[in-house]
């Protein structure tokens, strides 16, 4: 958990879902369309209560499915207002085709996604299979380690979306973050409202003085160019995200980047991870560091766009790296973060670090400090050149094979 750094806000105890609803109350989007799903239900349930009680002026659209939730959110955003939604797992899957429409039409939608395993077999607990599946959909993806990060990321996401004209997905780990209460520093409403500012879209469908067609048939002559625009926007988004994070630090005190480096300055070994388990890794690293073991952590915050250049530089002098994925791509090869890390390094001409792939925590399977310490033992063996073949396959943590 991140201890509050400044006393600009108020300290409260809230769960991830509660803080997401609180952030949405402060952002006060014009339209929220959502459908309940465990473990994200509370977000929109609490928010719909704010609407019913007249605490926010937002329009809440109770829809019959997630497909309609994303459709209504897209329509509202295209019409020219701030639109948000929240979902999880099967709900995100049901939104699938609409996700691409949101990014393809370049609509600055912000969605809070609570990470949960995908059926079958049915399971409501955390892994990252749902949002990892959406990694190529043209949505910016920001992962959160703690309740505080959920809050801070949602506030920043509004501005990131509106500046980059790309939809943004802010994630938190199901139950681990969504349902666990932590101490959070919340900022006052005026500070948040002035940080996000008024939304003034350049073009919107209800601007009757400047009519245009949105979402028309786009064949061989233009489709490719439109897709390239999204790819380019995703690359450019890195600078925008960093700039907004810096401004956030000025306003609220807490600092963010595309990824967080923990004990990396003199590290020989490194673990790369995403989401709440980064906290577990930090605890393990603290213990290992007390035994003078030079191990560090890279916690990816912004997974899309993937910060490939900087990460390659930061990992260039590491001797052995473990990449921990909370989703298995079932590809016969490797899982998503591992593939991104390896290709980032290789494309920069960095081929010296030995990199090992781990999959952990599917369906909410526990990961403990002891598991991380075992990973260190393997990393140490690899670094000493004693265990080379380990890097050629995916390893599974805490699985009964």
């Amino acid at each position, binding site marked *: 958990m991140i201890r509050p750094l400044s006393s600009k806000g108020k300290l409260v105890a809230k769960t991830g879902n509660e803080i997401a609803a609180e952030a949405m109350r402060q952002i006060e989007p014009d339209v929220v369309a959502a459908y309940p799903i465990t473990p994200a239900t509370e977000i929109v349930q609490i928010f719909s209560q704010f609407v019913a009680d007249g605490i926010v002026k937002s329009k809440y659209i109770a829809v019959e499915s997630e497909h309609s939730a994303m459709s209504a959110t897209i329509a509202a955003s295209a019409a020219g207002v701030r639109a948000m939604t929240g979902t999880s797992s099967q709900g995100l899957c049901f939104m699938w085709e609409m996700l691409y429409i949101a990014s393809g039409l*370049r609509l600055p939608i912000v969605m809070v996604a609570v990470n949960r395993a995908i059926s079958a077999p049915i399971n409501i607990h955390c892994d990252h299979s749902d949002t990892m599946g959406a990694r190529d959909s043209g949505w910016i993806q920001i992962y959160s380690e703690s309740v505080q990060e959920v809050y801070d990321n949602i506030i920043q996401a509004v501005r990131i979306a509106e500046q980059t004209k790309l939809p943004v997905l802010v994630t938190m780990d199901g139950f681990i973050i969504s349902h666990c209460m932590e101490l959070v520093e919340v900022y006052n409403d005026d500070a948040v409202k002035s940080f996000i500012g008024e939304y003034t879209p350049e073009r919107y469908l209800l601007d009757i003085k400047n009519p245009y*067609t949105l979402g028309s048939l786009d064949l061989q002559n233009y489709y490719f160019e*439109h897709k390239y625009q999204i790819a380019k926007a995703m690359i450019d988004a890195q600078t925008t995200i960093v700039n907004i994070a810096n401004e956030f630090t000025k306003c609220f005190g807490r600092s963010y980047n595309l990824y967080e480096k923990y004990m990396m300055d003199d590290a020989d070994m490194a673990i790369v991870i995403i989401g709440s388990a980064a906290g577990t890794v930090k605890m393990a690293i603290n213990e290992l560091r007390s035994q003078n073991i030079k191990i560090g952590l890279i916690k990816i915050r912004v997974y899309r766009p993937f910060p490939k250049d900087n990460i390659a530089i930061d990992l260039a002098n590491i001797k052995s790296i473990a990449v921990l994925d909370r989703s298995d791509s079932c590809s016969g090869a490797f899982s998503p973060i591992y593939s991104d890390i390896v290709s980032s390094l290789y494309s920069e001409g960095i081929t010296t670090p030995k990199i090992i792939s781990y999959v952990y925590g599917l369906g909410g399977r526990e990961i403990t400090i002891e598991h991380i310490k075992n990973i260190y033992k393997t990393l140490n063996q690899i670094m000493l050149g004693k265990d080379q073949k380990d890097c050629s396959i995916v390893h599974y943590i805490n699985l009964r094979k």
Partner: protein
Amino acid sequence: MDKYNEKKDKYTTATTIPIGDIVEAGTASTFCTGNWRSRKPIWNNTKCINCLICWIYCPDSSIKLISKSNKTIVSGINYTYCKGCGICANVCNIKAIVMEEENK
């Protein structure tokens, strides 16, 4: 080069086309669909009773109208956009519009 193709040349690269699949309003007027036609409607001025049913049904707004002594009457067919679908000829009760081969 027709008007449509001139417009295409102006918007050719990913940096010059509007983002997000935006198409400016009214661009259908620059897209001359008349060259799609294999059969063309022929309007008979003397038979026509100006009921305007053809005008209502035409999907391409290609039935030309004018005002004459406080009445709106048909003045011809706009072959720049008429695709030759034949709906006008089909709905005309008195056969004031008939279809002919385009290259007759």
